[in-house]
């Protein structure tokens, strides 16, 4: 007890030393507490973000595959291998008591070409003509005619400003063609030969219109019903889930708003959001840029308005702008020139008057969308699939990383993958055998083709009569269709009917599980530890000799999953440096203090204090310092964590939203955090005290007396 008393007295006597050492200990304890809470919270929230959205606790991939699965890093199929016996694997793994579900997967990207605005409208007109729907033909034709008129007007304005001599021949011809298509005679004769008119419009006119929209979609090909049930962050926003066993596509709401929505409308939304955050149009350069784009890209609106819609929108804009201006381009330009005073009114007017009359989303719920993928062999594959609705991962609405994942049914995914079935392989092998081609290597090709004994070969086929050529034409080569046959051909056909049938076909669970998948997500039961789950799964893989590799969610997530490890490393290094510095400073302070206390220690020794008692006195002093200042640091750290744990920290960018598992980050200190921080501070303090204590032990009464003299 006396030692504690002396220790406290010393702390109070040597205030500067105590302040320096104590400050360091407080800082070290604070850093440990904040760091541990940060790591622990990120780990927990990231785990929720990743595990419950797309990854599951464990991912399976083919053992020995060239590339390791990387859910958030993988842009294409990569060489992650294939799982061929998914049905068997699923059955075996789901039999483990630790496992809740196994979900088949494949992650890939595809392109959806929107076509330019005129292309899209012409396609609608072609379909209406083929369907013989006179009413629809009339509606769409009038819209196309209006678009051609706008294009003609625009090109005439262009001609007025530019030197025609500088125009390319193609451009000059294009201008002439557009002018021709804008003549009444062209449209008056449309019904006489609609296909010829369509060919003219598609080939000569549409290329003069504004650029093509291209949408890049990243998707998870999966058993959509299982995916929806197993990943609890998944929730529908618009439309309906894909019916069980059917083909379909669900677009992530984030992607839907960012990429599929009409660009002008999207920019208005972004301005609204930015203003809600406190920004001002007058001072925000990015908002000014969005306004500028909305003004210059007026065609995004005017091209989409048919006659009736143009009249309605024109009247509303004239009323809002208090003008009699009739030029729609000028009206839209003026309408989009918003400021802090009129923005909300014009935003509301846009959604009330303009939005219902334009195609607000390039793909709408219920649309059949055509997606283009690149098969594993590298060639393009295209499929039609119905868009059933939009969804989001709860709490990750604004995260680009989670928002980039869309959902595609497994059967369509397999079609896009172009996986070589045995039948396909056999067919290819037969074609190759028939060709008789000898494979040449790049390095030796030139020598083999043009080296000694080889050379150019010229064959004269003039003797082969057309009949001979025809004789070797494949029997299913195209037949020469007569113009009449083409014009009267009924819409739809075997390929199209097949596609239609696929749309409503319900696949059995055996069919879904029976085909190839690229990976599989394992969701563990709620209270199962990840390490235990991994061990059980790996044991089963070994036992059943499955050609599989199991990755925990961190490893399967790629760089994102390793982020916690990086934070750990950075924090550990910071703490190490802080402790090293503390160690040196505490040590020096105590050495100085020891030297100052030589007389006191010598006196203690003179009155009978043993060396071990001196050592103990120093240790107790260090212990008291560690406890007092460590506790202060821990209390301070705990208070900060508790404050932000209650109010949250705003996740101000996409990555932070993903790490936080939501728009705000709520740090929390794990139960073991405080003891760990206190023990760490204590150990460092005691180590720092060893040398000064050793010095003190060596002080003799004689030395103390000499010191006093």
């Amino acid at each position, binding site marked *: 007890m006396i030692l504690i008393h002396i220790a406290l007295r010393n702390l109070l006597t040597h205030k500067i030393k105590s302040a320096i050492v104590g400050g360091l200990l407080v800082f070290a304890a604070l850093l440990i507490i904040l760091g541990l809470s940060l790591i622990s919270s990120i780990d927990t929230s990231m785990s929720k973000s990743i595990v419950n959205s797309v990854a599951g606790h464990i991912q399976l991939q083919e053992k020995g595959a060239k590339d390791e699965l990387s859910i958030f890093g993988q842009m294409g199929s990569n060489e992650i291998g294939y799982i061929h016996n998914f049905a068997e694997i699923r059955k075996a793994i789901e039999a483990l008591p630790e496992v809740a579900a196994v979900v088949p997967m494949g992650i890939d990207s595809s392109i959806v*070409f929107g*076509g*330019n605005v005129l292309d899209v409208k012409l*396609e609608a007109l*072609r379909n209406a003509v083929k369907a013989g729907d006179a009413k629809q033909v009339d509606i769409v034709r009038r819209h196309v005619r209006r678009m051609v008129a706008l294009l003609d007007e625009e090109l005439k304005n262009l001609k007025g400003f530019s030197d025609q001599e500088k125009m*390319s021949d*193609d451009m000059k011809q294009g201008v002439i063609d557009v002018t021709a298509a804008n003549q009444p005679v062209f449209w008056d004769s449309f019904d006489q030969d609609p*296909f010829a008119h369509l*060919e003219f419009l*598609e080939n000569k006119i549409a*290329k003069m219109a504004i650029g093509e929209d291209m949408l890049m979609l990243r998707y998870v090909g999966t058993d959509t019903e299982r995916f929806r049930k197993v990943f609890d962050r998944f929730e529908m926003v618009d439309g309906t889930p894909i019916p069980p066993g059917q083909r379909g596509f669900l677009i992530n709401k984030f992607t839907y708003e960012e990429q599929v929505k009409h660009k002008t409308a999207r920019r208005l939304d972004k301005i609204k959001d930015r203003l809600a955050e406190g920004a001002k149009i007058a001072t925000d350069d990015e908002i000014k840029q969005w306004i500028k784009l909305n003004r210059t890209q007026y065609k995004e609106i005017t091209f989409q308005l048919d006659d009736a819609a143009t009249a309605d929108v024109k009247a509303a804009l004239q009323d809002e702008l208090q003008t009699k201006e009739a030029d729609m381009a000028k009206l839209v330009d003026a309408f989009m020139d918003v400021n802090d005073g009129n923005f909300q009114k014009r935003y509301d007017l846009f959604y009330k008057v303009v939005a219902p009359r334009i195609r607000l989303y390039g793909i709408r719920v219920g649309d059949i969308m*055509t997606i*283009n993928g690149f098969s594993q062999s*590298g*060639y393009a594959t*295209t*499929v*039609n699939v119905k868009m059933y609705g939009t969804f989001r991962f709860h709490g990750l609405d604004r995260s680009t990383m989670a928002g980039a994942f869309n959902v595609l049914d497994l059967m369509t995914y397999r079609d896009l993958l172009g996986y070589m079935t045995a039948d*396909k*392989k056999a*067919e*290819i092998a037969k*074609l*190759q055998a*028939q060709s008789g*081609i000898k494979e*040449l290597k*790049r390095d030796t*090709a*030139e020598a083999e*083709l*043009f*080296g000694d004994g*080889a*050379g*150019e*070969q*010229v*064959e*004269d*086929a*003039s003797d*082969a009569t*057309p009949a001979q*050529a*025809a004789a*070797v*034409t*494949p029997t299913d080569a*195209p037949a*020469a*269709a007569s*113009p009449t046959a*083409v014009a009267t*051909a009924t819409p739809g056909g*075997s*390929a*199209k009917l*097949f*596609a239609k049938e696929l749309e409503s076909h319900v696949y059995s669970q055996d069919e879904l599980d029976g085909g190839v998948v690229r990976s599989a997500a394992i969701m563990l039961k709620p209270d199962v530890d990840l390490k235990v789950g991994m061990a059980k799964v790996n044991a089963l893989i070994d036992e059943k000799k499955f050609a599989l590799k199991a990755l925990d969610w961190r490893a399967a997530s790629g760089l994102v999953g390793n982020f916690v490890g990086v934070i750990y490393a950075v924090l550990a290094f910071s703490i190490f440096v802080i402790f090293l510095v503390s160690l040196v400073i505490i040590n020096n302070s105590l050495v100085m203090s020891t030297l100052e206390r030589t007389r006191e220690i010598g006196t203690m020794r003179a009155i009978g204090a043993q060396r071990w008692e001196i050592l103990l006195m120093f240790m107790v002093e260090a212990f008291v310092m560690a406890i007092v200042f460590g506790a202060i640091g821990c209390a301070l750290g705990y208070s900060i964590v508790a404050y932000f744990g209650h109010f949250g920290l705003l996740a101000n960018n996409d990555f932070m939203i993903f790490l936080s598992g939501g728009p705000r980050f709520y740090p929390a200190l794990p139960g073991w955090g405080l003891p760990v921080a206190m023990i760490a501070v204590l150990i460092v303090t005691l180590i720092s005290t060893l040398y000064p204590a050793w010095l003190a032990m060596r002080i003799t009464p004689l030395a103390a007396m000499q010191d006093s003299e």
Partner: protein
Amino acid sequence: MKYFLPICLFLSALPAVAQEAPAPAAPDAQPAPLNEAEALKWIQQLDDRQRNSGDYRTNIYMERKERNKNDVVFDATVFRRDADDKLMILFQAPKAEKGKGYLRVDKNLWMYDPTTGKWERRTEREKIGGTDSRRADFDESRLAEEYNIKYEGAEKLGSMWTQKMTLTLKKGVDAAYAKMVLWLSTSSGNTLKKQEFADSGKLMRTTYTPKWVKKFSPSKKGDVWTPKEIRIFDEVEKGNSTTILLKEQDLNSLPANLFTKAWLESQSR
């Protein structure tokens, strides 16, 4: 009697052709250097020999090999109407690809997929069927029209002497590659080797055409030359290559409405 007029026309055209044709030379003898005008004539002749004034049809076989991937193989039919700058490629096999096609009308390159019923615009850089081939590999040769020609000199290709020329794309022309180097046969004037470069100067493809076939065209009243075998090596993704065999050229007239979307669509019904 009915052949009299065509024969007369053919004979009257011969001196003109003979005048512009490269002087035949033995492939093992070093040829005389060309001046710029002569080099241009070689290229013009190259274009002219491959052009048909009427229609053209050929069946092709394409095989793409890519490292660590399954081979991609197609049977297809190529249709051309050079006078109208029209081209169509209709896939015949394998079954999964049957009915797909490309249609070039004016400067538009369309791709059609019967399973989706959709037409999509594609660019000059489109890899036909995902192979290393481009639209221009199957279309009428328009090198003199689209490129500026520079003569590089005589050079040996294997054991054969060739005339080497560099062609750079003219301003305003859209083509897959900005520059190409050709090695032309001194005996036939045909292209034996071609290297194509991106805008950056990076070598993209090397193509060999060791086999050529000529066929008399009544409409042209002259031979139409076509490569019979094309070997394309991808110089960016080393190890990838495409081989194309062109078979059974037919120079008879094709139906008037063949180069239309409607016709191509009708083939998959």
